[in-house]
């Protein structure tokens, strides 16, 4: 008795066997993504960096112990990437800074995602005057120079955030709660600026989904707007939403770095990549490694995020030209 296996079945029967194994759209996209070497490389690099930044500070030297006698030193055996002008180990500071920068990137993008999707979906679904009014508001906010807007927002919320800090310190569950308020503030301020483009993209996608028959069927069944929008429309436009969120994270990180550059970043002794770069830019003449290492790691992270985002866009968009 011969046992049948793909190896000794003729080709036609093999095809039938394969036909029965269904491929969902997501698995198709996943296969396309895996074939894109740049995207895979970016994704792996990202995972490595994220693991390093979240677990590294537990094992490395302290990021805030100053050693003023040492001052700024170039890379050595004891301090792998050198020290800054206060004698703090740069490698540890970069790892800790990565925690904050990556966290800000992720959370602020999620804030922008939630606000943007809701706003854009509502505007796109209802259409007509509501849509026109909502998009007008977006246009007006777009015309504001966001630097001033973010600065005003951050200054406006600084005192309430300090009260949040004091309130959190009571619990002392989270160990060191200094500066948590500032970080929350960064989430809110950056998210408040980045949702605009997301809203526009979501609205465009909703407009194209609105005409499809399954939406008409849902309406005929008597579903209310909330159910139609969030259970039927949004899941069908998840592709562009995912892509754009992956591309928003580097934009958010750049914005956080810019805010640190003008002095609105996290307070010392905490570091984010933005404050490290700002510090390095000031002292770069004598201590170039203070700029090159944080700047290099920052750029590397952004590279991986962008490659991943591009790969996702090529994988999820069937119509895009193959390249």
């Amino acid at each position: 008795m011969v046992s049948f296996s793909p190896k000794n079945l003729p080709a036609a029967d093999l095809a039938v066997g394969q036909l029965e194994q269904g491929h969902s759209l997501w698995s198709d996209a996943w296969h396309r993504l895996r074939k894109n070497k740049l995207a895979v490389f970016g994704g792996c690099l990202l995972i490595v960096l994220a693991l390093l930044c979240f677990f590294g500070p537990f094992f490395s030297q302290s990021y805030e112990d100053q050693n003023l006698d040492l001052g700024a030193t170039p890379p050595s055996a004891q301090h792998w990437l050198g020290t800054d002008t206060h004698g703090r180990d740069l490698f540890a500071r970069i790892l800790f800074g990565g925690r904050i920068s990556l966290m800000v990137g992720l959370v602020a993008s999620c804030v922008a995602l939630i606000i943007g999707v809701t706003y854009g979906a509502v505007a796109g679904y209802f259409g007509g005057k509501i849509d026109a009014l909502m998009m007008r508001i977006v246009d007006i906010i777009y015309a504001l120079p966001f630097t001033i807007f973010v600065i005003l927002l951050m200054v406006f919320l600084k005192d309430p955030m300090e009260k949040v800090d004091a309130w959190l310190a009571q619990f002392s569950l989270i160990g060191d709660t200094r500066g948590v308020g500032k970080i929350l503030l960064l989430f809110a301020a950056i998210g408040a600026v980045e949702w605009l483009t997301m809203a526009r993209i979501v609205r465009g996608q909703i407009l194209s989904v609105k005409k499809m028959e399954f939406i008409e069927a849902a309406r005929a069944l008597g579903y209310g707007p909330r159910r139609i929008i969030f259970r039927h429309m949004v899941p069908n436009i998840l592709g562009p939403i995912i892509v754009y969120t992956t591309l928003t994270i580097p934009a958010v990180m750049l914005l956080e770095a810019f805010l640190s550059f003008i002095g609105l970043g996290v307070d010392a002794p905490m570091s984010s990549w933005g404050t490290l770069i700002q510090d390095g830019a000031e002292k770069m003449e004598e201590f170039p490694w203070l700029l090159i290492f944080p700047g290099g790691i920052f750029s590397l992270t952004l590279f991986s995020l962008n490659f991943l985002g591009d790969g996702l866009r090529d994988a999820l968009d069937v119509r895009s030209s193959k390249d």
Partner: protein
Amino acid sequence: MLRFIVRRIFETVPVLFIIVTGTFFMIRFVPGGPFTAEKAVTPEVQRNLDAYYHLSDPLWKQYVDYLWDLCPKKFRPMALARGPDLKAAFGIDFRPSFRYANRTVNEIIAEKLPVSLELGLLSLGVALSLGLTAGVIAAVKRNTWLDYSASALAMTGICVPTFVVGPLLVLGFAIKLGWFNASGWYSPIDRVLPSLTLGFVYAAYIARLTRGGMLEVLNQDYIRTARAKGASELRVIFRHALRGGLLPVVSFLGPAVAGILTGSFVIEMIFQIPGLGREFVTSAFNRDYNLVLGTVILYAVFVILLNLVVDVLQVWLNPKLRFE
């Protein structure tokens, strides 16, 4: 077309109005005022300050007075020839600055805007020439080493922030090689490094968008028809493909050019350029109400104007949009 433009200009008035009102009240609600950082003043000085800045009037009166000062009252553009004086030409008065005593916001803008404009135009030139050529070459020679290197370079421009590129360029060319001054804006040679830095980043975005747009267009049937009819490759690119390929770049350029022209804070900080970009940030920190309003209004006007130009350009490039 003319009706479209006129209608758009009419629509900008309410937008500007909302922006002015919003900013006016928003900055006054932020804790801290323009003078809180300085030492206490005697009552006489305080009275003079109040009179000069209209601080003793009730808030609504301050607002209405400010709006009146803002409205263009005359129309003598020829006065601009003598110097960029908005007050003489159009009667627009941005009022005195809170922080820089004895200087009105009009003067500050008149002094700093040309610098930012110059930097902006030079950077735009660099960005367009570098970006467009790189994008077109990458699209035409797709998947060759030309494409890969151009795309990699563009990715670098997007991922490395200006405040890393700038100091690195200064470190390399000004300090180590000594070809340029590290900062300053005195002689023409000082224009090179700042415009290269700013231009490089925008060139990266333009290159990517151009490449994407061109790739989409080059797949279209009408390009195939042009080639079948015997047009040379150059003709196909420049006369047929570029029109459609430039569309995404043009939409991106609207707000981007507004940002470039009104000055980049980062570049001006790094290279110590006396431009308007710095005022955007420092005026908010200083709670200099009038200067904040002045810069916000200027930026909004630029954005609105450029959006109009971009929309007109889009219709010109893509005749299918003409009926919307």
